[in-house]
């Protein structure tokens, strides 16, 4: 039987990383996610699995250490919170441009600027619309429970290696700090160098008789750069085709739809129940992948419901993608507290009534 443990979301990330055979973690402390590195340092996995854990001098350094490790085909990751993730944007676009797989966890806090250490969901744009420069995408997973914090580490690595692209786990201070029971995975051995070289022939581990490998994102010739960009875009289309993940709650007979991810989705689940007690038939669609976004599934509801409310702890970011999905067929509005404040289930129901039902 799998091991059950009560732990914080941030601790679950660390525990899962050790168990699924991650090779390296490079990070820099920032609230509300410092427990990730603290847990790793406490568990000292270098003595058990051989995992490397290093505190870098900045998030710029940690994401570039990740780049170095990823270029060797190692499963490497970092975690941070919003201001630190801003510093990593350069590294992320270079990783995407060099087609390197890695996992980055963002336990989002309220901004802009230094903002607050309280939870928020205001880094949606940064994660799914680029953040760094150039035409690239980040595979973005949004956990809504401590269990998913643990499970998504391995899932994110699988997707990152499948598509040779960085993957982000976009969490927030609520999920990071919350304690829940988690079913932990079995310990899996780390990949051997032989396994990596056989399965990922692009890695730099020393050329050892073969043609040399070069990890780079520079292409001075515009036609070559354009061709490479087409290749990236094709890869992204394939990812959109195959990797959309979402969850539906009481949508079958819904007349209204909440669209919410992460901790907002948990709150909305409660809001659905309150609304239904009042006789309002509302369902919840929870995107699990924020990119690729469940566009088709949301579009499918455009013909069935009278309105959609995007509920986010931000001033309204994902709401733009919901609107794009329904193409004006149905009213879409946004509700959310932000800057570190968290909405209550009742507030969400009230917003639904005021913005979509009474209007």
């Amino acid at each position: 039987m799998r091991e059950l443990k009560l732990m914080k979301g941030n601790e679950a990330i660390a525990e899962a990383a050790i168990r699924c055979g991650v090779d390296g973690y490079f990070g820099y402390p920032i609230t509300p996610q410092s427990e990730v590195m603290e847990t790793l340092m406490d568990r000292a996995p270098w003595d058990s699995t051989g995992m490397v854990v290093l505190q870098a001098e900045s998030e710029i350094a940690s994401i570039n250490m990740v780049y170095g490790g990823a270029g060797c085909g190692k499963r490497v990751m970092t975690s941070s919170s919003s201001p630190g993730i801003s510093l990593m944007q350069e590294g992320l676009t270079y990783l995407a441009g060099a087609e390197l797989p890695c996992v980055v966890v963002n336990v989002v806090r309220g901004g802009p600027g230094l903002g607050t250490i309280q939870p928020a969901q205001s880094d949606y744009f940064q994660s799914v619309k680029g953040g760094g420069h150039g035409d690239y995408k980040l595979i973005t997973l949004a956990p809504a429970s401590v269990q998913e914090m643990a499970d998504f580490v391995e899932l994110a690595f699988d997707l990152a290696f499948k598509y040779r692209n960085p993957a982000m786990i976009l969490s927030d201070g609520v999920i990071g700090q919350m304690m829940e029971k988690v079913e932990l995975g079995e310990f899996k051995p780390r990949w051997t160098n032989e396994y990596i070289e056989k399965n990922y022939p692009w890695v730099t581990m020393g050329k050892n008789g073969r043609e040399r490998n070069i990890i780079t994102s520079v292409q001075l010739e515009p036609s070559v750069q354009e061709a490479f960009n087409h290749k990236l875009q094709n890869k992204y289309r394939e990812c959109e085709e195959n990797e959309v993940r979402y969850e539906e709650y009481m949508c079958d007979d819904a007349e209204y739809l909440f669209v919410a991810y992460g901790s907002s989705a948990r709150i909305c689940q409660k809001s659905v129940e309150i609304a239904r007690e009042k006789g309002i038939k509302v369902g919840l669609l929870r995107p699990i992948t924020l990119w690729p976004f469940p566009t088709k599934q949301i579009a499918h509801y455009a013909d069935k419901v009278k309105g959609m409310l995007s509920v986010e702890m931000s001033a309204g970011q994902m709401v733009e993608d919901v609107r794009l999905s329904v193409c004006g067929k149905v009213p879409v509005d946004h509700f959310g507290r932000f800057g570190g404040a968290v909405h209550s289930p009742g507030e969400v129901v009230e917003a639904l009534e005021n913005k979509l039902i009474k209007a």
Partner: protein
Amino acid sequence: MSETNSIISPENIVYKKSPVLLDNTMHYCPGCSHGTVHKLIAEVIEEMGVQDITIGVAPVGCSVLAYNYIDVDWQEAAHGRAPALATGIKRLLPEKVVFSYQGDGDLAAIGTAETIHACNRGENIVMVFINNGIYGMTGGQMAPTTLPGMKAATCPQGRDVSHDGMPIKISDLLAQLPGTCYVTRQAVHTPANVRKTKKALRKAFENQLANKGTSLVEVVATCNSGWKMNPVQSNEWMEENMFPMYPLGDLKDE
């Protein structure tokens, strides 16, 4: 001429291109020090027999395409981040040989933090540092190492130290850090200096095999395009002007 012809036969070869150096024509300007240092690195890798286990990290700067010339595995870093990449590689593959190659803008301006902390942690890597006192790639702007009074595109009247500060002697600073085992400053403008630089590089790579920590080889170099002189004049100008600020020799050898 017949004498010469009889001498030109394979058994008489005393100097030839290292097989670790690829045949691609280097994109550098005529006389550029980057080419000379690339060749020395290739020779050292060849002589030590570490070609199959070496990973180079290229910078942003004129040597961004260094991977086109030395036949080993390479990673291209963002501007200034090479020491962080090298850290990631070496920590995960401690049995491999890892070196970074950086210009002065890359190593001593935008990447100062990565440089200092990699050296301070004593990352077991080789860092090759080309100090030509200017930003070559972007067209000759002022570098952190530009000499007082020296003209560059962003200090056309010459570097005014009351405005821009004095040049940073970063190798002196790095020699103070406990993590570095070997910090040396060399040049490649004369045959004797080339030979010394090669010895220094060899020592640096050997230090890595002996797990001694960070070795930094600074090469005081010319950028004749940026300096607006011909290669031979550049070498003379370097001796007269760069060497007093950046004296050659070992700063640390433990």
